[in-house]
């Protein structure tokens, strides 16, 4: 056995290209099978006529794409876009100070980062259900407020945009904190001392040194929140009810109850195209300003 192992090692040592392929194969195989192929299938479906009992029938049509440009769907798309943007901004405003404090908390930082990722130990579904119990009319928050006499009537929170936004921010906040923390944690503190000797007061040390150097983390965090927000459907489904539909719900609906796969596929591709445009725009901005000159 040992000789077989040695021969294999010798073989790969002599052929670096073969080694690279061998290392790439498992991941590539997985992605091709479970990402590329389904995407291609969806693309083909989105250009085929809908069958009467669901599925598709042979033929070619762009009607599903045309159908999407309807005020009803455009409003959903617009709302999804604005909500995702708002969720990203709120996550940034809440996540940056949090990441900053954790990065500066010395020996405690590993413990605090552990607490940030701790919610991932429970299923997102369960956590979202827990928020229903918090926010409904007879939930914990309303109960407490009623008992203390601060309010006479329960505040309507569940099935409002507020509930959806709370859910989105809650769900994606760690994705904002993690990359910002990573960029702040490796920041060389002597840069701040250098700035201080050169006359920079705390605010200008932050805006002239700390913040520009954390921009890569901020951008990564924003993408990690914005993109999944655009595609989220669970949060808006459970916390937003029937009134607060996001594009994710629309798509999910086409594949389940509406059984209109080609239209669902077309909608998916339109969202994907928008995400792609957003990412490309970011990459252009980043490349034009190297090392995060904001």
């Amino acid at each position: 056995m040992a000789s077989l192992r040695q021969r294999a090692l010798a073989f790969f040592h002599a052929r670096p290209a073969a080694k690279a392929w061998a290392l790439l194969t498992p991941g590539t195989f997985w992605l091709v099978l479970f990402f590329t192929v389904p995407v291609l299938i969806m693309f083909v479906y989105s250009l085929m006529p809908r069958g009467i009992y669901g599925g598709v029938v042979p033929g070619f049509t762009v009607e599903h794409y045309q159908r999407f440009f309807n005020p009803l769907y455009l409003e959903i798309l617009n709302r999804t876009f604005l909500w995702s943007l708002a969720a990203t901004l709120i996550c940034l405003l809440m996540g940056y100070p949090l990441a900053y404090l954790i990065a500066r908390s010395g020996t405690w930082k590993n413990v605090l980062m552990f607490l940030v990722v701790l919610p991932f130990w429970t299923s997102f579904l369960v956590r979202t259900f827990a928020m229903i119990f918090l926010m409904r009319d007879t939930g914990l928050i309303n109960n407490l407020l009623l008992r203390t006499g601060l309010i006479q009537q329960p505040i309507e929170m569940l099935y409002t945009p507020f509930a959806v936004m709370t859910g989105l921010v809650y769900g994606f906040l760690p994705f904002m904190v993690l990359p910002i923390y990573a960029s702040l944690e490796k920041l060389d503190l002597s840069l701040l001392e250098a700035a201080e000797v050169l006359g920079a007061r705390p605010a200008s040390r932050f805006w002239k040194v700390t913040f520009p150097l954390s921009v890569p983390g901020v951008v990564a965090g924003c993408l990690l929140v914005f993109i999944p927000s655009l595609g989220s459907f669970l949060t808006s489904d459970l916390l937003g009810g029937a009134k607060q539909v996001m594009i994710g719900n629309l798509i999910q609906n086409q594949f389940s109850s509406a059984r209109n796969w080609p239209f669902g596929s077309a909608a998916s591709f339109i969202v994907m195209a928008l995400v792609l445009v957003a990412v490309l725009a970011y990459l252009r901005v980043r490349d034009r300003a190297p090392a995060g000159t904001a």
Partner: protein
Amino acid sequence: MASPIDSATGPAVEFTRVSKSFGDFKAVKDITFEIRRGEFFSLLGPSGCGKTTTLRLLAGFEQPDEDGGTVRISGQVVNQKRPYERQIGMVFQNYAIFPHLSVEKNVAFGLVQHKVPKAEIPDRVVKALEMVRLDVGKFAQRMPNQLSGGQRQRVALARALVLRPAILLLDEPLGAIDLKLRKEMQLELKALNKSLGITFVYVTHDQEEALTMSDRIAVMDNARVAQLGSPAEIYENPRTSFVAKFIGESNFFDGTVERKDGAVWRVTGANCSFVVPDHPALRPGAAVRIAVRPEWMDVCATREVPSGENAAGGTVRDVIYLGEMMHVIVTLRDGTDCTVAVRNEGQLIKPLPWKRGDAAAVAWLPEDCQILEDE
């Protein structure tokens, strides 16, 4: 307390009984010294000796302990002053160049912070870059990651000097660049110190660097100043065995003082008896430790010790060829090694008569004994 006359002519920096602790660790213990206006002053010592803490106390990144003495700059107590209120510049060990700003913007940073009129800034940046001999046309627009270590070093220097500080603090700035460039920079820094009239305070663990550049050196050991003086005073007259060992090389001899014999004292040691010059610490029966520099000693045949010199017999253990010098290592009777540095007069034409295993004596003049005051 400080009159205007003091601040114009008095010392640039005064540390008076300054102490600094981090938790239970005492980084600096009760140190007192002055730095003269315009001098090149080095804080020299091994890592952990407190030299960096001393520099950071001066920079204002650390404050002395409560009742931990005072730090004065130009006669003014600065204990509670922030770094930017102290008229200092600083060059950091890793340069601390802002990686997101071009060379030009790095150098202009302090000017912008100090609200220097916009029209004045480009001119002062160019002058600062010229001062550190960086080609403005070639480098001003470059980003730090496009610079070599030596160039970054110069940018850091320009960034500090552009504000015309009264004192420039340098924290081991030459540690990371190669030997040849380092020698060059040493001379350049010394020249800048003289031409600008700015007081330089330089932290280093490299004794050769400190000797090369400094007007005066404070040798630090174990959170205290072990000795302060000019390079010659420190090298030729080390006060403790730490200083004698840390700066250059030394041979040590321990003994017991016997009696005074005219102007000298007779001492009995483990290997030999020897005489040492008069010193206030000497009295009959006292233990004494002396240091002798290798180049102040000679090797000779056991019977050919010049009269009037101290000598100890032993065996040649090794002869080391160093180019301009030869080191002869002689193992003395008690087993300790004694290093003697001999000028190389050409081993091909005039080889040393000593080889391994030969019996030989080391000899030195009484006045070359440095009497050490160890606690």
